[in-house]
């Protein structure tokens, strides 16, 4: 990778840099004109120079051939111009000025936009190139880098370069030309002043790099510190568990604080130096003015110089400071950016990357593996150069199931890693179908070989996207950078900047990840079979059951779910469920729900009807008044409070019992006591309003099954049912849909799928009931053929950041599912599924082994480094490894005696 920033910029934006320079030059005359015209307007039409008589005219737009006055005595006119009188001249000049202003503005707009686009697209290229290299880092190297440092380099460190790219060449050339012109004029006016100025400029050019040395070092240090900061922050965030477990948040604070202090110290010194350099520059350039005035003035006074020459010199000098300051600033920026760039690309450039050919996308149809692996004399060493595999030779066919058995230090796992290309052999050769493994494109092995170990990392997103993520990529990607100096072909992407920023850049609809209709019908059976063999089907089905259907959910699904609800309710065959579920029946009081839930008997869609807001809900209070329930609920609430006070009143404040029962807090008990005193002998109409609300809240939150205070008798239940009906009628007549009522005949979109089928509450007293209910529901879904539909809904379950919503066993099963989903020719299981219980794990491995075998012939080769010691019957061959080499290799029967020994 190119280490020099300017060379990098020139290589990748040469033509654009030249174009920008041409446009800047073209803009110059307009700029000049814009400055010139006001002078002409003031001098000419306004101050009447050249319009001394009312009839006088002056030429407008006269064009003369330049420099002709030097060769002949008079100018050669190409066009004499239009003769205009004073008022017309004023109008014409003013309009010209307006045009010049507009044109100049347009040039500025164009140049700035162009520079911005150039900077951004070059920045895009640089970032892409850096990421391209990350993708091509050898696995061993990438495991050593800190993720947040890499992202900090690619995202933040190169960002400021974008602003510099556009100015990299045009600015110095342009400013240099200006400065040179200024100098030339000055020399022409007065050689002595010219020489003095040149001397000062040369002195500046000499002193500034010296002052800057420290500045550059500080710049480097600042960048390193910032990178370290993001690395450390990333580590702390990732390892936050341990920070809390060991109570060392303050060590983290100290650590980060120290880095921040370092950054502040560096930056402060940087500012001091930077502004000091600026001060020196400004001072030196202004020093010239001082010399001009003092020396020139003295010479004029003493009569050795005439006034006109001095004024002309000072006028010529006036144009110098700006461009010189500009050049110095530009140079400063160049140096800082050069450092930034160098530091950013340093690591990337130094790391050996895998060759272009291994990752380049091809149109070639990928061929199936015919024979399999052949390993000869493989030796692999660990990080301390100790051999972990020694002289390993074996042939592993795609038509067999091989178990590579061995303990943790046997080298079996490393063999699997070598086969999966995660580990590089120090010596020996590995071929796949006779081709050196190193020369085979990753897309070939990636698609034809499945690999799963027990390390899991998921980026997050849905299960569906996680599954699709590792399927072969079929879209168009930006090119792999073949040779950094030649520049890959990015011309296709030149016009990306013209696309509206509002448009999502979907890279390809054909790709499974971005394709909403994936998996299609053709792929579906395969996905199902993989999910069933990895035992993920049930997990995903349960995820699906716990989701709600979108309000626009398919009507046929809703109808099927309603059918399932009826079937479940009528299912008398499930004897043990009798009474375990209390169904939602609008005509019955549900004891598993609180009084408040029984009243609204539905899911609140408006916060007004949330349980905590019910005591102040006007509609609800109105209904209670109409049904004469206010005083009864008031009494019930008081009874709840009395029971609580009686139960917990004598307990000490720090009582564990009080805390453990989840009952009211000691403060609440005290408040209840006071409230009972205040409302003693009062009714709902005479008690203070606040107390009424509190008491009603207690009543609404009361559930007989939870508290068993015996507050709820049959009569009250009947009245509550009346109120429930009244509330539904009232809301119905108002057209108010704040509550999604529980109607046995209707699908309730705000309930989860399983709640829609269950349509009731499981009796909390029955510990084993939940599993039995779940199984009964699954059976019904299976029979009604809607279980797959719900499974499909479950596929959109969000697995959470890094897959944290999955259990470890689910995550490990998902890893195996990904390896199988691409229909590989061979699958490598490297201590996969280690978190599962042995029975389930063995069953899954058995299924995978039989999955690859059709009509007695093995279609999918399996190489398994098992977690369990046996059974071996499913395998064609067992290789036992000890101390990095093979101790026996043969059929399970042949190896059995030896395996017994090694196990004992």
């Amino acid at each position, binding site marked *: 990778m190119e280490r020099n920033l300017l060379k990098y910029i020139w290589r990748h934006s040469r033509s654009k840099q030249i174009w920008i320079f041409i446009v800047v030059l073209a803009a110059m005359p307009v700029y000049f004109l814009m400055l010139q015209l006001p002078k002409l307007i003031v001098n000419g039409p306004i101050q009447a120079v050249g319009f001394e008589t009312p009839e006088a005219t002056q030429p407008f737009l006269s064009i003369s051939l330049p420099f002709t006055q030097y060769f002949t005595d008079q100018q050669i006119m190409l066009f004499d111009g239009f003769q205009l009188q004073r008022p017309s001249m004023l109008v014409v000049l003013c309009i010209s000025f307006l045009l010049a202003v507009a044109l100049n503005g347009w040039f500025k707009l164009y140049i700035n936009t162009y520079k911005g686009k150039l900077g951004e697209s070059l920045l895009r290229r640089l970032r892409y190139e850096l990421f391209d290299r990350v993708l091509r880092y050898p696995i061993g190297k990438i495991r050593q880098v800190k993720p947040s440092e890499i992202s900090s380099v690619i995202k933040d460190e190169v960002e400021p370069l974008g602003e510099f790219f556009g100015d990299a060449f045009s600015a110095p050339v342009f400013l240099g030309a200006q400065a040179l012109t200024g100098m030339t004029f000055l020399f022409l006016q007065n050689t002595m002043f010219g020489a003095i100025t040149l001397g000062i400029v040369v002195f500046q050019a000499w002193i500034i790099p010296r002052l800057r040395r420290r500045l550059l070092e500080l710049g480097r240090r600042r960048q390193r510190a910032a990178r370290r900061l993001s690395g450390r922050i990333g580590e702390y965030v990732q390892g936050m568990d341990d920070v809390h477990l060991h109570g060392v948040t303050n060590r983290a604070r100290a650590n980060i604080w120290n880095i921040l202090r370092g950054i502040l110290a560096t930056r402060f010194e940087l500012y001091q130096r930077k502004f000091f350099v600026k001060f020196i520059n400004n001072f030196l350039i202004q020093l010239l003015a001082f010399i001009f005035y003092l020396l020139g003035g003295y010479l004029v006074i003493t009569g050795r110089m005439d006034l006109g020459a001095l004024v002309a010199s000072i006028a010529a000098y006036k144009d110098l400071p700006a461009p010189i300051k500009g050049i110095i600033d530009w140079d400063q920026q160049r140096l800082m950016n050069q450092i930034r760039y160098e530091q950013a690309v340093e690591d990337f450039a130094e790391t050996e990357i895998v060759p272009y050919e291994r990752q380049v996308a091809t149109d070639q149809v990928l061929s199936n593996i015919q024979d399999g692996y052949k390993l000869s004399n493989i030796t692999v060493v660990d990080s301390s150069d100790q051999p972990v595999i020694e002289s390993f030779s074996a042939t592993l066919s795609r038509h067999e199931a091989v178990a590579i058995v061995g303990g943790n230090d046997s080298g079996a796992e490393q063999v699997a890693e070598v086969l999966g290309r995660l580990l590089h052999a120090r010596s020996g050769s590995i071929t796949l179908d006779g081709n050196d493994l190193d020369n085979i494109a990753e897309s070939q092995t990636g698609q034809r070989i499945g690999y799963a170990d027990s390390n899991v990392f998921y980026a997050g997103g849905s299960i569906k996207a996680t599954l699709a993520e590792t399927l072969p990529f079929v879209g168009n990607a930006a090119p792999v950078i073949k040779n950094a100096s030649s520049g890959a072909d990015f011309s296709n992407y030149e016009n990306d900047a013209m696309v509206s920023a509002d448009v999502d850049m979907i890279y390809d609809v054909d790709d499974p990840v971005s394709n909403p209709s994936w998996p299609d019908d053709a792929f579906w059976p395969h996905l199902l079979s993989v999910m069933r063999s990895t035992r993920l089907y049930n997990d995903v089905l349960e995820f699906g059951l716990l989701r709600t259907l979108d309000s626009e959910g398919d009507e046929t699904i809703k109808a099927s779910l309603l059918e399932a609800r009826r079937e479940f309710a009528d299912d008398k065959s499930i004897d043990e469920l009798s*009474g375990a579920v209390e169904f939602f029946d609008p005509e019955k009081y549900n004891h598993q729900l609180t009084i408040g839930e029984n009243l609204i008997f539905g899911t609140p869609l408006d916060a007004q009807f949330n349980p905590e807001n019910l005591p102040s809900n006007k509609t609800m209070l109105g209904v209670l008044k109409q049904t004469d329930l206010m005083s009864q609920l008031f009494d019930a609430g008081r009874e709840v409070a009395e029971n609580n006070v009686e139960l917990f009143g004598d307990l000490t404040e720090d009582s*564990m019992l009080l805390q453990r029962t989840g009952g009211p807090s000691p403060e609440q008990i005290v408040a209840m006591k006071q409230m009972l005193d205040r409302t003693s002998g009062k009714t709902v109409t005479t008690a203070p309003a606040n107390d009424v609300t509190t008491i009603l809240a207690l009543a609404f939150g009361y559930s*007989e*099954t939870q508290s*068993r*205070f015996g507050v709820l008798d049959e009569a009250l239940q009947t009245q509550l049912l009346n109120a429930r009906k009244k509330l539904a009628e009232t809301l119905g007549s108002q057209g108010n849909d704040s509550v999604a009522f529980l109607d046995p005949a209707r699908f309730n979109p705000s309930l989860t799928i399983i709640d829609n089928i269950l349509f009731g509450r499981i009796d909390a*007293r029955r510990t*084993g009931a939940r599993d039995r209910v779940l199984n009964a529901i699954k059976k019904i879904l299976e029979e009604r053929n809607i279980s797959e539909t719900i499974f499909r809904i479950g596929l959109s379950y969000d697995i959470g950041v890094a897959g944290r919503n999955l259990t470890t066993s689910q995550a490990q099963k998902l890893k195996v599912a990904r390896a199988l989903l691409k229909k590989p020719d061979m699958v490598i299981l490297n201590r996969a599924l280690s978190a599962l219980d042995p029975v389930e794990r063995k069953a899954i491995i058995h299924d995978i082994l039989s999955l690859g075998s059709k009509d007695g012939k093995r279609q999918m080769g399996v190489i398994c480094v098992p977690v369990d010691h046996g059974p071996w019957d499913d395998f064609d061959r067992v290789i036992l490894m000890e101390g990095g080499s093979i101790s026996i290799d043969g059929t399970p029967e042949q190896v059995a005696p030896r395996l017994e020994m090694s196990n004992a």
Partner: protein
Amino acid sequence: MSTLKDDVAMLRRVALFSSVDPSKLKLIAYTASQRVFEDGEMVFAKGSNGTSAYLIVRGEAEILVESGGKQVVVAVHGRNALFGEISAFCDVPRTAGVRARGQLSVLELKRENLMELIHEFPEVAVEVIRELARRLASTTSDLAHVLDSKETSD
């Protein structure tokens, strides 16, 4: 569904709690959870590490002991019987298994709640000690009987 009052009345009939103050009994009942087991469902297995005592509200529970690889029913408890209290008071695995015969409703009394109750109301502890001592006395006299009959049969 039983209310707290019913539960208190039932606890009162259990010897262990018979002389405990009614308000404390109510607290015991409140901290207990109601559980329902279906016919044949195990409440706990022998050797498991349970820490709860159970009081039968309704139904019957079979006490099982393993003998020759088979589960043998050695006793059947009915309404108001307390079982599992040994593991609830001392840290030993379940000495026998318990299975529901027909639908069984129980009150589950958790060890930490019982212990906390004893801690906060020492008079409960006195009752517990009294009851346990009574049981020890009766077990000792049972043992003496067994030894006597063994001697006579020898």
